[in-house]
Protein backbone atom coordinates (compact mmCIF):
# COMPACT_ATOMS: atom_id res chain seq x y z
CA UNK A 1 0.00 0.00 0.00
CA UNK A 2 1.10 3.54 -0.64
CA UNK A 3 2.65 4.80 2.66
CA UNK A 4 0.83 8.15 2.47
CA UNK A 5 -2.50 6.38 2.00
CA UNK A 6 -1.70 4.03 4.88
CA UNK A 7 -0.92 7.07 7.06
CA UNK A 8 -4.25 8.68 6.17
CA UNK A 9 -6.15 5.47 6.92
CA UNK A 10 -4.26 5.08 10.19
CA UNK A 11 -5.14 8.64 11.22
CA UNK A 12 -8.80 7.91 10.43
CA UNK A 13 -8.75 4.72 12.48
CA UNK A 14 -7.09 6.55 15.40
CA UNK A 15 -9.99 9.00 15.46
CA UNK A 16 -12.41 6.14 16.28
CA UNK A 17 -10.99 6.23 19.79
CA UNK A 18 -12.49 9.68 20.26
CA UNK A 19 -15.92 8.07 20.07
CA UNK A 20 -15.19 6.31 23.36
CA UNK A 21 -14.25 9.61 24.96
CA UNK A 22 -17.50 11.04 23.58
CA UNK A 23 -19.48 8.30 25.32
CA UNK A 24 -17.58 8.96 28.54
CA UNK A 25 -18.07 12.74 28.47
CA UNK A 26 -21.75 12.28 27.65
CA UNK A 27 -22.16 9.89 30.58
CA UNK A 28 -20.49 12.34 32.95
CA UNK A 29 -22.60 15.34 31.94
CA UNK A 30 -25.78 13.26 31.70
CA UNK A 31 -25.35 11.86 35.19
CA UNK A 32 -24.42 15.27 36.55
CA UNK A 33 -27.59 16.75 35.06
CA UNK A 34 -29.73 13.90 36.38
CA UNK A 35 -28.25 14.29 39.85
CA UNK A 36 -28.50 18.10 39.71
CA UNK A 37 -32.22 17.89 38.91
CA UNK A 38 -32.78 15.57 41.87
CA UNK A 39 -30.89 17.79 44.27
CA UNK A 40 -30.32 21.25 42.77
CA UNK A 41 -28.89 22.70 45.99
CA UNK A 42 -25.93 20.28 45.93
CA UNK A 43 -25.20 20.78 42.24
CA UNK A 44 -23.05 23.91 42.58
CA UNK A 45 -20.66 22.23 45.01
CA UNK A 46 -19.93 19.40 42.58
CA UNK A 47 -19.14 21.60 39.59
CA UNK A 48 -15.36 21.35 40.12
CA UNK A 49 -15.64 17.55 40.33
CA UNK A 50 -17.67 17.58 37.13
CA UNK A 51 -15.00 19.54 35.28
CA UNK A 52 -12.25 17.34 36.70
CA UNK A 53 -14.01 14.14 35.58
CA UNK A 54 -14.68 15.71 32.20
CA UNK A 55 -11.02 16.69 31.81
CA UNK A 56 -9.69 13.25 32.80
CA UNK A 57 -12.12 11.48 30.46
CA UNK A 58 -11.41 13.86 27.62
CA UNK A 59 -7.66 13.25 28.04
CA UNK A 60 -8.13 9.75 26.61
CA UNK A 61 -9.86 11.12 23.54
CA UNK A 62 -7.08 13.66 23.22
CA UNK A 63 -4.49 10.88 23.16
CA UNK A 64 -6.17 9.29 20.15
CA UNK A 65 -6.41 12.69 18.45
CA UNK A 66 -2.71 13.12 19.19
CA UNK A 67 -1.95 9.83 17.42
CA UNK A 68 -3.94 11.03 14.42
CA UNK A 69 -2.13 14.40 14.36
CA UNK A 70 1.26 12.70 14.73
CA UNK A 71 0.46 10.38 11.82
CA UNK A 72 -0.68 13.27 9.65
CA UNK A 73 1.97 15.88 10.37
CA UNK A 74 4.92 14.51 12.35
CA UNK A 75 5.80 10.94 11.32
Amino acid at each position, binding site marked *: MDPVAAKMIGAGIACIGMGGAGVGVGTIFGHYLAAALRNPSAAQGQF*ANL*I*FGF*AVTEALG*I*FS*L*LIALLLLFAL
Partner: protein
Amino acid sequence: MEDPIHQFEIVKYFTLGHIAGREIAFTNSALFMAIAIAGITLLLVGSTSRRSLVPGRLQSIAEMSYEFVADMVRSTTGTEGMRFFPFVFSIFMFVLFLNLIGLVPYTFSVTSHIVITATLALMVFFTVIGYGVWKNGTKFLRVFVPSGIPIYILPLVSAIEIMSFLSRPLSHCVRLFANILAGHITLKVFAGFVTMLGTWGLLGWLGAVLPLGMTVALTALELLVAVLQAYVFAILTCIYLHDALHPGH
Protein backbone atom coordinates in the same frame (compact mmCIF):
# COMPACT_ATOMS: atom_id res chain seq x y z
CA MET B 1 -11.59 26.61 -1.09
CA GLU B 2 -8.99 28.43 0.94
CA ASP B 3 -6.67 26.34 3.07
CA PRO B 4 -8.14 26.20 6.61
CA ILE B 5 -4.65 25.68 8.12
CA HIS B 6 -3.38 28.97 6.66
CA GLN B 7 -4.67 30.98 9.65
CA PHE B 8 -2.12 29.32 11.99
CA GLU B 9 0.89 30.48 10.01
CA ILE B 10 3.56 32.28 12.04
CA VAL B 11 4.65 35.50 10.35
CA LYS B 12 7.93 37.11 11.31
CA TYR B 13 7.76 40.90 11.73
CA PHE B 14 11.36 41.74 12.65
CA THR B 15 14.40 40.04 14.11
CA LEU B 16 15.41 40.88 17.65
CA GLY B 17 18.72 39.02 17.73
CA HIS B 18 20.42 35.65 17.68
CA ILE B 19 20.97 33.28 20.59
CA ALA B 20 23.29 30.29 19.93
CA GLY B 21 22.75 30.53 16.19
CA ARG B 22 18.96 30.61 16.51
CA GLU B 23 16.98 33.58 15.37
CA ILE B 24 14.86 35.35 17.97
CA ALA B 25 12.15 37.15 16.04
CA PHE B 26 9.10 39.21 16.91
CA THR B 27 6.22 37.30 15.29
CA ASN B 28 2.46 37.69 15.08
CA SER B 29 2.28 35.20 17.96
CA ALA B 30 4.41 37.50 20.12
CA LEU B 31 2.33 40.49 19.01
CA PHE B 32 -0.95 38.91 20.12
CA MET B 33 0.57 37.76 23.41
CA ALA B 34 1.65 41.37 24.00
CA ILE B 35 -1.88 42.54 23.11
CA ALA B 36 -3.35 40.06 25.60
CA ILE B 37 -0.99 41.22 28.36
CA ALA B 38 -1.79 44.87 27.57
CA GLY B 39 -5.53 44.06 27.65
CA ILE B 40 -5.30 42.32 31.02
CA THR B 41 -3.17 45.11 32.49
CA LEU B 42 -5.49 47.77 31.14
CA LEU B 43 -8.57 45.98 32.52
CA LEU B 44 -7.15 45.35 35.99
CA VAL B 45 -5.17 48.56 36.52
CA GLY B 46 -7.62 50.82 34.72
CA SER B 47 -10.63 49.51 36.60
CA THR B 48 -9.07 49.54 40.06
CA SER B 49 -7.17 52.83 39.94
CA ARG B 50 -10.39 54.80 40.52
CA ARG B 51 -12.13 52.44 42.90
CA SER B 52 -15.67 53.11 43.99
CA LEU B 53 -17.73 51.37 46.65
CA VAL B 54 -20.43 50.58 44.12
CA PRO B 55 -18.44 49.10 41.24
CA GLY B 56 -18.99 50.22 37.67
CA ARG B 57 -18.99 47.85 34.70
CA LEU B 58 -15.23 47.49 34.27
CA GLN B 59 -14.59 47.28 37.99
CA SER B 60 -17.27 44.57 38.23
CA ILE B 61 -15.52 42.51 35.56
CA ALA B 62 -12.19 42.81 37.36
CA GLU B 63 -13.71 41.99 40.75
CA MET B 64 -15.74 39.07 39.38
CA SER B 65 -12.73 37.48 37.68
CA TYR B 66 -10.71 37.92 40.87
CA GLU B 67 -13.45 36.39 43.04
CA PHE B 68 -14.03 33.58 40.55
CA VAL B 69 -10.40 32.46 40.50
CA ALA B 70 -9.99 32.99 44.27
CA ASP B 71 -13.02 30.75 44.93
CA MET B 72 -11.67 28.14 42.55
CA VAL B 73 -8.22 28.08 44.19
CA ARG B 74 -9.67 28.06 47.71
CA SER B 75 -12.16 25.26 47.06
CA THR B 76 -9.69 22.95 45.30
CA THR B 77 -6.42 23.53 47.17
CA GLY B 78 -7.54 24.89 50.55
CA THR B 79 -6.46 28.12 52.20
CA GLU B 80 -2.72 27.31 52.08
CA GLY B 81 -3.08 27.02 48.30
CA MET B 82 -3.88 30.74 48.17
CA ARG B 83 -0.13 31.48 47.94
CA PHE B 84 -0.48 30.13 44.38
CA PHE B 85 -3.36 32.48 43.62
CA PRO B 86 -1.25 34.98 41.60
CA PHE B 87 0.15 32.10 39.54
CA VAL B 88 -3.25 30.57 38.78
CA PHE B 89 -4.85 33.98 38.17
CA SER B 90 -2.11 34.92 35.68
CA ILE B 91 -2.48 31.63 33.81
CA PHE B 92 -6.29 31.89 33.74
CA MET B 93 -6.38 35.48 32.52
CA PHE B 94 -3.60 34.90 29.97
CA VAL B 95 -5.26 31.82 28.44
CA LEU B 96 -8.73 33.41 28.57
CA PHE B 97 -7.60 36.60 26.80
CA LEU B 98 -5.62 34.69 24.18
CA ASN B 99 -8.63 32.43 23.47
CA LEU B 100 -11.06 35.34 23.26
CA ILE B 101 -8.80 37.55 21.13
CA GLY B 102 -8.25 34.61 18.78
CA LEU B 103 -12.00 34.50 18.07
CA VAL B 104 -12.03 37.96 16.52
CA PRO B 105 -11.77 37.65 12.72
CA TYR B 106 -8.34 38.37 11.16
CA THR B 107 -6.55 37.83 14.47
CA PHE B 108 -4.15 35.09 15.37
CA SER B 109 -5.02 32.51 18.05
CA VAL B 110 -1.84 31.98 20.03
CA THR B 111 -3.16 29.03 22.06
CA SER B 112 -3.62 27.00 18.85
CA HIS B 113 0.14 26.42 18.86
CA ILE B 114 1.29 23.53 21.00
CA VAL B 115 4.58 25.23 21.86
CA ILE B 116 2.71 27.89 23.88
CA THR B 117 0.39 25.49 25.72
CA ALA B 118 3.23 22.99 26.32
CA THR B 119 5.34 25.73 27.88
CA LEU B 120 2.49 26.68 30.22
CA ALA B 121 1.78 23.03 31.10
CA LEU B 122 5.45 22.24 31.76
CA MET B 123 5.70 25.35 33.92
CA VAL B 124 2.82 24.00 36.04
CA PHE B 125 4.34 20.48 36.06
CA PHE B 126 7.75 21.64 37.30
CA THR B 127 6.16 24.04 39.80
CA VAL B 128 4.26 21.07 41.27
CA ILE B 129 7.38 18.88 41.46
CA GLY B 130 9.63 21.69 42.71
CA TYR B 131 7.26 22.99 45.38
CA GLY B 132 6.19 19.45 46.38
CA VAL B 133 9.77 18.31 46.94
CA TRP B 134 10.75 21.59 48.63
CA LYS B 135 7.80 21.49 51.05
CA ASN B 136 7.39 17.75 51.70
CA GLY B 137 10.83 16.31 50.97
CA THR B 138 10.70 12.59 50.31
CA LYS B 139 7.10 12.51 51.55
CA PHE B 140 6.19 13.94 48.15
CA LEU B 141 6.60 10.37 46.79
CA ARG B 142 3.42 9.52 48.72
CA VAL B 143 1.58 11.05 45.76
CA PHE B 144 2.26 7.74 43.99
CA VAL B 145 1.03 5.62 46.91
CA PRO B 146 -2.69 6.09 47.52
CA SER B 147 -3.77 5.26 51.06
CA GLY B 148 -6.14 2.37 51.80
CA ILE B 149 -4.96 0.13 48.97
CA PRO B 150 -4.24 -3.56 49.78
CA ILE B 151 -0.50 -4.27 49.71
CA TYR B 152 -0.67 -6.94 47.00
CA ILE B 153 -2.07 -4.62 44.32
CA LEU B 154 -0.09 -1.59 45.49
CA PRO B 155 2.79 -2.07 42.96
CA LEU B 156 0.30 -2.10 40.10
CA VAL B 157 -1.56 0.96 41.43
CA SER B 158 1.72 2.81 41.98
CA ALA B 159 2.83 2.07 38.43
CA ILE B 160 -0.48 3.44 37.12
CA GLU B 161 -0.16 6.52 39.36
CA ILE B 162 3.35 7.21 38.06
CA MET B 163 2.16 6.83 34.48
CA SER B 164 -0.79 9.16 35.03
CA PHE B 165 1.43 11.71 36.80
CA LEU B 166 3.87 11.75 33.89
CA SER B 167 1.13 12.00 31.25
CA ARG B 168 -0.43 15.02 32.99
CA PRO B 169 1.50 17.76 31.17
CA LEU B 170 0.79 16.02 27.86
CA SER B 171 -3.00 15.94 28.30
CA HIS B 172 -2.90 19.36 30.01
CA CYS B 173 -1.34 21.09 26.99
CA VAL B 174 -2.89 19.06 24.18
CA ARG B 175 -6.43 19.63 25.52
CA LEU B 176 -6.23 23.40 25.15
CA PHE B 177 -4.27 23.27 21.88
CA ALA B 178 -6.52 20.65 20.24
CA ASN B 179 -9.77 22.35 21.27
CA ILE B 180 -8.73 25.74 19.92
CA LEU B 181 -7.13 24.27 16.78
CA ALA B 182 -10.10 22.03 15.93
CA GLY B 183 -12.59 24.82 16.65
CA HIS B 184 -10.85 27.31 14.40
CA ILE B 185 -10.45 24.79 11.57
CA THR B 186 -14.16 23.90 11.76
CA LEU B 187 -15.04 27.58 11.69
CA LYS B 188 -12.88 28.16 8.60
CA VAL B 189 -14.26 25.08 6.80
CA PHE B 190 -17.85 26.29 7.25
CA ALA B 191 -16.88 29.82 6.25
CA GLY B 192 -15.26 28.28 3.15
CA PHE B 193 -18.60 26.70 2.20
CA VAL B 194 -20.15 30.18 2.07
CA THR B 195 -17.65 31.51 -0.46
CA MET B 196 -17.81 28.26 -2.46
CA LEU B 197 -21.62 28.41 -2.73
CA GLY B 198 -21.44 32.13 -3.49
CA THR B 199 -19.81 31.38 -6.85
CA TRP B 200 -22.81 29.29 -8.00
CA GLY B 201 -25.16 32.17 -8.76
CA LEU B 202 -28.53 32.94 -7.19
CA LEU B 203 -29.28 29.38 -6.03
CA GLY B 204 -25.88 29.24 -4.37
CA TRP B 205 -26.56 32.56 -2.64
CA LEU B 206 -29.74 31.14 -1.14
CA GLY B 207 -27.96 27.94 -0.13
CA ALA B 208 -25.09 29.89 1.43
CA VAL B 209 -27.45 31.15 4.15
CA LEU B 210 -27.25 27.74 5.85
CA PRO B 211 -23.45 27.56 6.32
CA LEU B 212 -23.43 31.27 7.22
CA GLY B 213 -25.91 30.60 10.04
CA MET B 214 -23.82 27.61 11.03
CA THR B 215 -20.71 29.81 11.21
CA VAL B 216 -22.51 32.24 13.52
CA ALA B 217 -23.70 29.36 15.73
CA LEU B 218 -20.22 27.83 15.77
CA THR B 219 -18.73 31.18 16.80
CA ALA B 220 -21.09 31.18 19.78
CA LEU B 221 -20.01 27.62 20.59
CA GLU B 222 -16.35 28.61 20.27
CA LEU B 223 -16.95 31.48 22.69
CA LEU B 224 -18.17 28.90 25.21
CA VAL B 225 -15.21 26.62 24.45
CA ALA B 226 -12.74 29.49 24.84
CA VAL B 227 -14.01 30.34 28.32
CA LEU B 228 -14.47 26.69 29.34
CA GLN B 229 -10.98 25.66 28.24
CA ALA B 230 -9.40 28.56 30.12
CA TYR B 231 -11.37 27.47 33.18
CA VAL B 232 -10.39 23.79 32.71
CA PHE B 233 -6.74 24.76 32.27
CA ALA B 234 -6.81 26.81 35.48
CA ILE B 235 -8.72 24.25 37.57
CA LEU B 236 -6.41 21.43 36.48
CA THR B 237 -3.51 23.64 37.56
CA CYS B 238 -5.21 23.94 40.97
CA ILE B 239 -5.79 20.18 41.20
CA TYR B 240 -2.16 19.43 40.34
CA LEU B 241 -0.99 22.03 42.88
CA HIS B 242 -3.20 20.30 45.46
CA ASP B 243 -0.96 17.22 45.07
CA ALA B 244 2.12 19.33 45.77
CA LEU B 245 0.52 20.70 48.96
CA HIS B 246 -1.08 17.46 50.22
CA PRO B 247 0.75 14.50 48.66
CA GLY B 248 -1.02 11.88 50.82
CA HIS B 249 -4.25 11.97 48.75
